[in-house]
Structures are given as structure tokens and as C-alpha cells.
């Protein structure tokens, strides 16, 4: 369903985007592609990634990526609560928590879900990204999801969670990798919220969209860098 809507929107955008032929063609192509995908099962993870995981990281990685691929058609028609629960459980189980410094030998690295799954490791941001990506593709509205910077009191360290707002002014649900279950935010006295941002604001969409198109992530922030890398893997947010 999502793909068919996106396809129609993209075709419409192609018609509107007169000033850039490449962009228009791209939109049109994507739209058509989306429509064709919708005709069969919901396919978010390209088969090429499965092959790539086998080639680069071996059979274990391939199996994880395959399970990830299978998650989408599985939850395609489930209700939103099930989707939240299953997605949270899936990534908490499939990704091992490793700090960036150890795993990537970098201070802070936002890995794509493919990287996190295939290398079988990631830190809090990588969990959040993978969950956000999956939920958006399963049709959860962008306005309901926020990425929130928090402080974990017990660990006394910076942490990140994905929050879900059933309504605008509701107390959100927290999807966290520290505990297995989804809890309401007011039950999470171990976390102090600092700041949350909407990964899909209209303005942000536009700015990041250009960043992706320009293919030059160096001068942009981590989020954009991530989106560019995901785009290259065929995993658009």
C-alpha cells in the first residue's frame, strides 16, 4: 500500500518537476518501480544486499539480512501495536550492542541497518535507525515517530531511543535496546529526555533530499551522511 501511494506521489512529482529532467525521470522510474513492487510482496530490502552480505561477511550475515528482508511482508498487514512490538524485538535480538569505538573504530558512527545486521553489531543510534527505517516502511506516520536524545541515569552515559506518539500531545512509548519491552515514557525513570527531532519534517525532507541528490555528505550532518549511504544501498528512508 505504501509503495503504491509513494509510486503515485512520485509519478505526480515527476509531472510537476519540469525543471529537472533527470529528477523527473528518476521520480517517474521510482514511482513505476514502487507500483510494480506493490503488485507482489512488500520488498524493502533488495536481493542484492543479501548477496552482498554473503560475499562480504559470510553465511551468518546472509541469514540475518534474509530474516530482515522477510520481516516486511510478514508485518505488512499487521496493526500498528504489533508492528512496533515485532520490529523492536527483531532488532534487539538480531543486533549485538557494541560501542562505536570498538566496532567501527570511530568516535561516533551512524551505521545503516544493513551494516549493523551484516556486521552483527551496533550501538544505540544504529538500533534507532534500523527501527525507524523499518517502521516507516511498514506505514507508521513520520509525525508519530521522534528520535530522542536521552541520558541513561544508571549507566550515566548519552543514549538514544525511538519514541512513538500515538497522538500529538500523548506521553510517548519508548523503543529502547536497553530493555526488551516497549514501555511508556513515564515508566522509564532510568532515562532523562534531552532533545528530540523529527527526522521527517517538511523542511528537513527538502534539505536532506538535496543532500542525497548532490551526493556530497561531507559538509552535512550525520543524519544526511547516513541517508546518502542508505540511498546507495537501495534503502531510502
Amino acid at each position, binding site marked *: 500500500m505504501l509503495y503504491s501511494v509513494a509510486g503515485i506521489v512520485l509519478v505526480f512529482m515527476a509531472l510537476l518537476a519540469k525543471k529537472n529532467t533527470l529528477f523527473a525521470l528518476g521520480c517517474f522510474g521510482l514511482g513505476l518501480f514502487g507500483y510494480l513492487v506493490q503488485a507482489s510482496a512488500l520488498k524493502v530490502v533488495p536481493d542484492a544486499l543479501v548477496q552482498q552480505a554473503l560475499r562480504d561477511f559470510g553465511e551468518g550475515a546472509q541469514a540475518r539480512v534474509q530474516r530482515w528482508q522477510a520481516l516486511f511482508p510478514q508485518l505488512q498487514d499487521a496493526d500498528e501495536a504489533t508492528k512496533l512490538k515485532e520490529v523492536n524485538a527483531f532488532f534487539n535480538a538480531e543486533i549485538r550492542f557494541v560501542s562505536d569505538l570498538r566496532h567501527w573504530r570511530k568516535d561516533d558512527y551512524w551505521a545503516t541497518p544493513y551494516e549493523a545486521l551484516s556486521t552483527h553489531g551496533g550501538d544505540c543510534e544504529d538500533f534507532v535507525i534500523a527501527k525507524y527505517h523499518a517502521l516507516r516502511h511498514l506505514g507508521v506516520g513520520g509525525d508519530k515517530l*521522534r528520535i530522542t536524545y536521552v541520558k541513561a541515569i544508571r549507566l550515566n552515559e548519552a543514549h538514544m531511543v525511538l519514541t512513538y506518539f500515538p497522538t500529538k*500531545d500523548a*506521553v510517548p512509548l519508548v523503543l529502547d535496546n536497553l530493555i526488551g519491552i516497549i514501555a511508556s*515514557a513515564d515508566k522509564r525513570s532510568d532515562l532523562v*529526555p534531552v532533545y528530540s*527531532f523529527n527526522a521527517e519534517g517538511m523542511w528537513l525532507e*527538502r534539505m536532506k533530499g538535496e543532500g542525497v541528490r548532490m551526493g556530497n555528505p561531507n559538509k552535512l550532518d550525520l543524519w544526511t551522511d547516513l541517508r546518502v549511504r542508505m540511498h546507495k544501498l537501495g534503502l531510502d528512508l
Partner: protein
Amino acid sequence: MSLRQQFSLLTSFLVIVLFIGSLLLTITNARHAFEEQLNARAYDASSALSLALSQVSDDETLQLRLIDALYDRGFFASIEFQKVNGQSLYKRNMDALAAEQSPLWLARFLPIAAMPAQTDVMQGWQRMGTVTVSSYTGIAYQDLWTLIRTELMWYGLVLVLSLLGVQWLLRWLLRPLQEVEKQAKAITERQWPIQEHIPRTRELRHMVLAMNQMVQRLRSLFSEQAALTEKLRLETFTDNPTGLLNRRGFDQRMDTVFKDVQEHSGVLLLLQLHNLAQFNQEQGRQATDDLIATLARQLQLWTASLHQAFVGRRSGADFALYLPCVGRVQAMNYIQTLIDELATSVLSARNRMDFHIGAVFLHQEGDVLSSALSRADAALRQAQQQGSASFVLYQDDQGSKEPTASEWRALLLNVLHYEALQLLFHTSFDQQGQPIQVEVLSRITLDEKIISAGRFWPMVEQHHLSAQFDALIIRKVLHYLTEVDLPKNLCCCVNLSAASVLDQTLLRQLVQWLDDAPEAAKRLAFEVPEAALASIEPSLQHFLEEIRPYGVRLGVDQVGTGSMAFAYLRRLPISYLRIDGSFSRNLAQAQDQRFFVQSMVQIANNLDIDVLADGVEQEADADELWQAHVQALSGYYYGRPAPTPCLQPH
């Protein structure tokens, strides 16, 4: 449009196209960069503000002060804080600034879209609302406007400099072309300049060299043709060893005198060396030839000093002279002078050479050559009865009283004083019968008898009054031209005597008159006899420099009677030649004469000079002249001189 203008236009076009393209690119890029920066700043500000607001979510006053603090920096057009339920909590909005630094149209044509940046403000885990921040675009427009103006100034400077550069470069490059143009113009004005400066550019160098070659070729062609024609004339009409006219040449000149439209008055002399054969036997052939040559030279010198006099050698020992003079008294004076001069030099008694002169005074209309010659011959027989160095002037019954020289002087001064001179006009027509030119003649009245210039002019010359008479005629003609409306293109020509050309006073007067009558001046032409050209050419150059600016033309008449080569055609800016009547007459019967006329017309036409012929009496001669491409004819066949110009051929 000149080549230089075309190049300049092309350069300007290129510079302007480049400029517009570059300006558009720069502006588009700048606009894009400005837009990105504004939006990034709005987003950063919005993020920072919402982060700050989230920290103090329980203190609304502090929150509003935070917003004010950011807003008052002046970089943002609007900052709005909205509750999560959509209710607006606080809003600061910048009004359009009164003093906009950039024109309004700029915003219309180059819109900078400032995207409002929206971020969440949190209250603990919950969303409190959103902050929306929009950048102020005025500063961007101002920068953009400054950029456009700077670019415009820079390109304007480049345009001006490149145009100046192109002008200078082209002027330098195309100078040879201008020189060639000048050269070509000079050729049409019958000069043959050679370009000294050979340009280095290959094509231009070839062109200049080719032009120079052509000029040289034309010059030599002209010289060759002129020399050939000259030689032909000499062979036909002159006596070989002496260079005088031969019998045919003399008779023809004489015939012209009789048949000229002006009345004639002069004396015909036959001079015979009595014992030339004996001299030849005694002194040898060389001495005889020397004697003849010396005599010829002396006669020629003597006649050259008299206006329109000429001399010929009719046969071995027979010479003939014609001296225009006004009456028998003057004629006798001339003859006596001649005899004195000869008897004291070449034909002195020391040479033991007898010579006699028989003369006849001719002034009647209806004189013919044969009768004149037979009367002169009769006088010669009489003279031979007397001793050596004697002469007899043929007596006829023209016993009328003649004024003496001093009476003549009084009479002529009187004419000048009262301007009692009447103009006569003699028209030349072209082949279609259109009048082309009128030659001005003059006459005076003496004792109720009309005397034409042909008769009284020798006296004018003798008393050195020709400049005054010419001045009077010119003044009358200019007056006539301003008064009378002649057909367009009809030009009026006045005969100018050699003395007038040399007279500086007359020239000053003339310039004054021409100044006063500029329209008439354009219809005026002066004619000088070919025979006089040699002696007055330098003065004539000066004379022409003064009067040419007024559009006055110069013609040469009696062409063929002078002994000059045609080289003067090249040196003087001559408009037309008038072939002497002696060439027109019986042209149909004389093939060599015809050839002379034809080649002369050819030479003249090559130099863009018109050729007219005078003294046409028969249709056959007229036909021959038309065939030779003579432009206009005059003579009794077309009409006599008349007090008003005759505009129809007779």
C-alpha cells in the same frame, strides 16, 4: 557600414552575450548559495532555540525572552512558537523594512525562497509545541544587488576597453586598405601614386603590391599610347627635318582660319629662298640643311611670340607664315621686323642668300585658301623683281581708312571703360542634339561696324590689355549666368589668354567674383589654347588650385595645334579637350587624321576627359566624329554664334 564598424558591432555583441551569460550564471549561483545559507541558518537557529526552550519548558516568561533574544539579532523575518494543539503562543514578525537597499523588482524576478524551519519543543517526554523560524531575505537581496552592480560595472569596463582595443587594432590593420582606396581615387583623378609602405599582413601585402603594379602598368600604357599618337601627328602634319608644319599642315591651319566662326584678320606671308639650289651646290648638302634648320628655328621662335601665329615649310625653299594682325599698317610693321631680323642673322648677306617675301592681308569673309595663296604668290613675284630681302604686300582695292595703333588703344580703353563688349554664344551639341556647352565669344562695334574678337584681339594683345578684356568677359558671363536661366548641365566656357593666367590681380578679383556667385561658378569653364600651355603650365597649376574649389572646370582648345606631348593631360585636372577645327574638316576623306582623332579620344576617355570638336561643316565629318566617340560637336553645321545661346541644332 564600414568594416571597422562591423567588427566593432560583432565584438560588442560577443561581449554582451558573454556578459549576459556570465551574469545570469553568477546570479543564479549566488541566489542558490544565499538561499541555502539562509535556510541552514534558520534550521540551526530553530534547532538551538527549541533545544533551549525545551530546557526551560516550565518557565514561559524565560522562554519568550529567549525568543526575543534570538529575534533581536535581526537575522530573522519571523519566529513563531506554537503549542502542540495549534494555538499560537508567541510570534515576532518583521515588517518590511522602510529603507530597502535593493530594487523591488529584484525580489520579483529572482525570488529567494526562505523555507521556514520547524523544530519540536519538548516538555520532558512530551511534545510542548513547535518553533518556526524564517530567515530575513533583505540582506541577501542587498548582497545580490551589490553583486549585480559590480558585475555590470566590470563588464561595462571590459566592453569599453575591448571596443577601444578593437578600434585601434582595426585602424592599424586596415590602414593599407585606406591607402589602396586613396590610390584608386587618385587613379580616377589621373594621378599614379605608388604606395611606399608595404604592409606585413600577407593578403594586404599582395593587394598593395598588385595595386602598385597596376598603377605602373597604367602609367606606362598611357605614356606609350600618348607617344604613339604624338608621333603620328608629327608625321602627318610636320615637315621632317625642320619640325615646322608641312604644306598639308599649314594649309589645314590656314583653312581653319578662314572658316573659323570668328572673323579673321591677318597677313599671309610667302618667303622664298631664291638661290637655294646654287647654295647647295656651292656649300654642300650639310650646310644647306643647317641653314634651313636655323631658319626654321628662328621663324618658329618669332611666330611663337605672336598670338596664334604659325609657320610652315611648303616646299624645299618655300616657307609660309600667317600672322594675325588688325590692319595693313600692323602687317607691314610685322613684315619689316621679320625681314630685319632675318637679314641680320641667318639670311645675312654673308651667306649670299637672296630671299623675298610676298604677302597678302586677309580680313574678308569669303576668303579662300587658293585665292589667298595665289595673291600672295603674285606679290612674291613682284618682290622678286626687287632686290634681296624685299617684300611686297598685295594691293587690293580695300582702300578704307584704318585706325592707327594709338587710335586702337584709345578705342580699346573706351570699350573697357564703357564695357561696350557684346557676348556671343556658340553652342556644342551632343549626338542626341542636346546642348552641352556654350563657348563665349565677344565682339565690339567700331564706326557702326561690328568687329569680332578674331579681328581685334591681336590689338588687345599688342597693347597688353588681354587680362582686362578677359576680366570684363568673365564678369559679364557670371552676370549673365546669374540672370538667365540656362538648361541644367549646360556649361559656359570662356577663353582665357595666357596673360590672364599669369595676372595675379585678375586671379584675386576672380576669386572674389566666384565667391559672390557660387551657383554661376559651377557652370563656368575656362579654356586655354593648347599651344600656350607649355609657357603657362606652372602658373596654371596655381590658378586652378584657387578656382577649382568653386567647381570651375578647365578645358583645352585648339588641341592638335600645339607642339606639346599629351603628358599635360596627366598633370593638369582637365575636364575636356576641344579638337581644333583643322582636324574636323574633311575628316571623312583623311584616314590618318581620323586615326589621330580616334586615338586622342581614346586617351582622353581613359583619363575621364571629354572630347569636343569644333569647326564641323559637313554631315560626313560629323558622322566620323561621332564614330570616334567625340562627346559634342560645334561648327556652322550646327549653328552660328549668336547673342543668346542657341539650344537647338540648326
